[in-house]
């Protein structure tokens, strides 16, 4: 039997604010349901990142946690894995730290890991909070990408990166696109269960590791997607977005 596909969840205690750890479970389960052995490895903040894995998953996190995660990843292990063609899938804050620069909790420009040609500053106006819907901008992913975003960052891509999707509803990167694809590195502002809501994206990532995949029954995912797409289409999401206010702190 072949070695299991190794899926590394990078510092879930720092990068996992919005249930992003679910992305690693989704990838592993979708392999197992097809009879392919898979193993997920949660890396603790005091542990070294394994260099020999097939997929690295990064989630969202708060400002200080984000800065800590960068310092823990500065040893170059993730960069070498990406350069060797290993898949990296990053969400929200995990996306931002893979860029050239991002803003830390004090609003200072902080150097990122440089795996993606992009820079993150602040969105003009309030945070982007609400449903995000986009059409895939890369070949091989069927159907729109749907999920939830909650971030204050605006991410501008350089020429070496291309967006993962073109935004139909919501904010995404803040320039009409969402996320980034650069070689084996894939990123998005769709947080939380991005891969559960978008099994086509999960399978697209897995295909890049194990080749062609057999179809599986995604009835429940399809029902969830239909509900969410109808919700966005009816514009309720936008109304909610307008209603959102930061909590009263000094009133």
């Amino acid at each position: 039997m072949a070695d299991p596909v190794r899926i590394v969840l990078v510092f879930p205690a720092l990068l996992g604010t919005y249930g992003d750890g679910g992305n690693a479970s989704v990838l592993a389960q979708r392999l197992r349901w097809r009879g392919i052995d898979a193993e997920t490895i949660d890396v603790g903040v005091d542990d070294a990142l394994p260099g020999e894995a097939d997929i690295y998953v990064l989630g969202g996190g708060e400002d200080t946690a984000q800065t800590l995660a960068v310092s823990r990843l500065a040893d170059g292990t993730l960069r070498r894995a990406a350069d060797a063609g290993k898949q990296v899938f990053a969400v929200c804050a995990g996306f931002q730290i893979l860029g050239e620069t991002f803003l830390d909790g004090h609003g200072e420009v902080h150097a990122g890991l440089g795996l993606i040609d992009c820079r993150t500053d602040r969105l003009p106006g309030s945070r982007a909070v609400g449903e995000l819907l986009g059409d895939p901008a890369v070949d091989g992913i069927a159907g729109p990408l749907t999920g939830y975003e909650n971030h204050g960052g605006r991410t501008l891509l350089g020429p070496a990166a291309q967006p993962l999707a073109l935004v139909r509803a919501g904010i995404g990167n803040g320039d009409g696109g969402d996320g980034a694809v650069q070689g084996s590195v894939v990123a998005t502002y769709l947080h939380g269960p991005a891969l559960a809501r978008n099994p086509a994206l999960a399978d697209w990532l897995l295909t890049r590791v194990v080749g062609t995949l057999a179809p599986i029954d995604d009835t429940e995912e399809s029902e969830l997607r239909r509900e969410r797409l109808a919700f966005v289409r009816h514009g309720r999401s936008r109304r909610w977005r307008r209603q959102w206010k930061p909590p009263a702190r000094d009133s």
Partner: protein
Amino acid sequence: MTARYQVARAAGATAAGLSRLAGRGTGTQIGGRVILAIDPTAMARAAGGRELALVSGTNGKTTTRTLLVAALETVEPVVSNAGGANLPAGLTAALTADTTSRLGVLEVDEPFLPRVVEAVEPRVVVLLNLSRDQLDRYAEVRRLAGIWHDALTGPHALAVVANADDPLVVWAASAAKNVVWVAAGQGWTFDSTSCPACGDILTRDGRRGWRSNGCGLTRPTPDWSVTDRTVTAPDGSSYDVELAIPGAVNVGNAALAAAAAAHWGVAPGAAFAAMARIPSVEGRYLETSFAGRPLRLLLAKNPAGWVEALAMSRPDAPVVVSVNARAADGRDPSWLWDVPFEVLRGRHAVASGERSRDVAVRLRYAGVDHVRVDDPADALRAAHGSGPVEVLANYTAFQTFRRVVGDG
């Protein structure tokens, strides 16, 4: 009492009455809003001359408030904000509705704690825990700890009763001059990986100890300790706490309530005896039945609360998991993926609520045998077997199930 305040109270009572007549609940919130609109100082005025305890934290506010009320009522009558109305309007309404009780216990929504502390000048503030909850509204948990820290800094005469096991709470409480530390436990550590004071990593010792690598912030030595169901008071006396309500977490909440009640001279033994008799808290932990079948209602509003509720549920009973995503729940149910639903493997589950599809997909990946039934009554009927059913629901979904079983 000023004329403006008197007018405000009368108008508030009228508005609440009209709202009740219109069938819109108890009218507490609307009445309080009317009062505050006419007299913005009404909360401070209504609190004047009383000795108040405030209870705040992500989880356990209502339960701990109820436990503390039971303990203090062994001394004299207590005004309190029952019914979950824990914003300034609800607090104002509760205080203006009861003009006679000298003691009061108020639960306070976390971001409003500074404003309420300033207005009512409490004698005691009880701080339970802080963890991720409604991230679409509050964005960052650490910021809540920060505003608590700022609110407790200064020449307050108040005493803080705080959970020594939660680093976010410890940092916030450490700003106060007078703190009683209670080892109330922390089941969810994912929001305190890094130090709330300096941002460096917190090292944990595998038991309950923790320490910041950067600034040395560390777990304080508790004045009240909790081991399983045994609570030890500062004088060394120990108490076996046998509550009617379930959960190890509630022994910790009872210890916090006892430490607060001690400020009014209530002996721990008397306090725990009063708390032990509480069968349920506004529907939480309620043991009832539906269509002849026993069931229990468990409320869980966020990942930490779900971990607690899953631990409380009977290990062999089928489970109805019901989730909504209205404003009061938080619009984003991504947190479903922070909850270890894998522990339900081998049991039958029913995905329900307005976001039943999200629940169903989560259960699918967790490997839990399940069906999806949106209607709450049908969901109860769909649970396998004939034994007790556990209903785990988040905030507004929980209210729906209370109505279905005829409670509230």
